């Protein structure tokens, strides 16, 4: 039981972070469910059919998903955010349709036989990704991301290439989603196209707040654990999700998606000495 909680919460935290990383550069991705599916299937095939060790298979699938993300994100990232949103929806739907039509991985029935994820894998992943993000939020890179997100034009005038920055974030987000997806699949033993394509991933991140790196994991943890402990809520999960998000958006229209109180910035404004680069 406790194992289940650790694995599911951990995987969802990493997924929420994968959306957060893409949001850092100001784009919203609905494709992370698709990248997660790519991770689950690619690593599943590598471990089950070719006998790769789990961690290496997860890394390979992450790199594959990252490449696909960069390739697919490239066209849309050149234009405004709304086109990217469309393309990300397209990626998610296409990934699902492609997986369903490949008989090699079981088509619509799904693919099984993956084992090997222990809670330690997931905890390790969360710690790694979390410390990476914590380092990032204290590094100059964070300010580049802030600049691109708030105003692409002025960022470009300062010599930052916004497309390059956004594309990198998109690739990293896809990578994280795929790694989380592969650990998830190797815990569940069996995955089907419907199961991995969760529309909730974006909501995890947004619900917790995207002002800093701690919002998404809190959102993911609350959203994963509450239905387990409150009887009857499981059946109403989508409605509860939808209503809560609507309320939050209506009460604090800027709070959820705007980065007004980013931690790094308030520190900079307060004039505290920046630490030696870490």
């Amino acid at each position, binding site marked *: 039981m406790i194992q289940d909680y650790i694995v599911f919460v951990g995987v969802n935290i990493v997924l929420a972070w994968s959306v957060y990383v893409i949001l850092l550069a100001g784009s919203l991705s609905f494709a992370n469910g698709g990248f997660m599916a790519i991770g689950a299937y690619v690593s599943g095939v590598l471990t089950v059919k070719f006998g790769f060790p789990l961690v290496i298979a997860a890394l390979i699938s992450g790199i594959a998903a990252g490449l696909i993300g960069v390739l697919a994100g490239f066209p*849309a990232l050149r234009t405004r955010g709304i086109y990217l*949103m*469309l393309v990300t*929806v*397209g990626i998610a739907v296409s990934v699902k*349709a492609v997986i369903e039509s490949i008989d090699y991985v079981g088509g619509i029935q799904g693919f099984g036989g993956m084992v090997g994820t222990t809670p330690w894998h997931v905890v390790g992943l969360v710690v790694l990704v979390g410390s990476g993000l914590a380092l990032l939020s204290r590094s100059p890179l964070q300010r580049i991301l802030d600049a691109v997100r708030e105003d692409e034009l002025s960022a470009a005038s300062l010599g930052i290439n916004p497309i390059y920055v956004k594309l990198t974030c998109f690739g990293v987000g896809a990578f994280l989603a795929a790694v989380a997806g592969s650990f998830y699949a190797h815990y569940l033993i069996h995955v089907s196209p419907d199961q991995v394509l969760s529309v909730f991933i974006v909501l995890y991140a947004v619900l917790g707040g995207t002002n800093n790196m701690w919002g998404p994991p809190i959102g993911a943890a609350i959203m994963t654990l509450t239905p387990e402990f409150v009887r009857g809520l499981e059946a109403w999960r989508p409605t509860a999700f*939808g209503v809560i998000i609507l309320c939050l958006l209506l009460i604090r*229209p800027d709070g959820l998606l705007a980065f007004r109180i980013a931690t790094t910035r308030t520190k900079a404004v307060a004039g505290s000495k920046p630490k030696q680069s870490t």
Partner: protein
Amino acid sequence: MLAEQIINGVVLGSMYALIAQGYTLVFGVLDKLNFAHGEVFMLGGFICVASIALGASLPIAILVTAIIAGLLGLVVEFIGFRKFQSPDAHLTAALSSFAIGLVIIDLSQKIWGAESVAVTLPGTLQTAAVSIGGLRIVMLRLAILVISLLLMLALYVVVTRSSLGRRIRAVAESPTKAALFGINVTRINQQVFFVASMMAGLAGLALALRTGYASSDVGFTFGLKALAIMAIGGMGDLRGALIGGLIIGVLEALAFHWGLGQLADVFVWLLMIVILLMRPSGLFGTLISKEVRA
């Protein structure tokens, strides 16, 4: 055989176009994507099921579906878009409409169950067919095609010719300037949402009648594909949505004819990605002057 497939494709395409025009109308006026639109479309089928189950005749069911779907559009506008009108609220509006869509799906599954529900019309309305030049065409499909084309023609005439259409175009051009000229922008938004959702509801009804059942996942498959079609045809362009819908409908029917049915979905979305790369204004983006843009 092939000709029949093409006719089926045109009927399918007219339904895509009906939904895509709703997306495009909202996008043209508000510059926002309405992710709840596909679910309003899905609900159209269920409203039709419910009203027929309550003993309504087909014309009454159509009327009821149109009105309820339109009212639902007003709700979507009020909850999901009223507060998020600033130009940089793309993400917020998309998320809020997405959340509304989630709630609609979940509630309709609570009411009608997750399985699809059969729709049966009295008499032979669903099976009656005519043969024209050796082709057997189901009357219902013909009726769907004619009615949706008429609806779209009416919408086009209203948007380009009437005074309401002038006001809609003014708001699409610039809400602030339109407000300065005494146009009630909120009212125009409501009217646009009402019309768009009404068309989506009717498309849902048409799909339910054509396939013989209403299902709660068409919003995610069929409805979302119309979003891609909107982008293919040209965002915010009514004619683009119509032509895009028909092209995709026919291509999809041909794909099924040649046994490539499963990849038709992928094809549509890949085409959309390619078109966004080559010309973000869509296939017909430059053919139409900005003035006529709805």
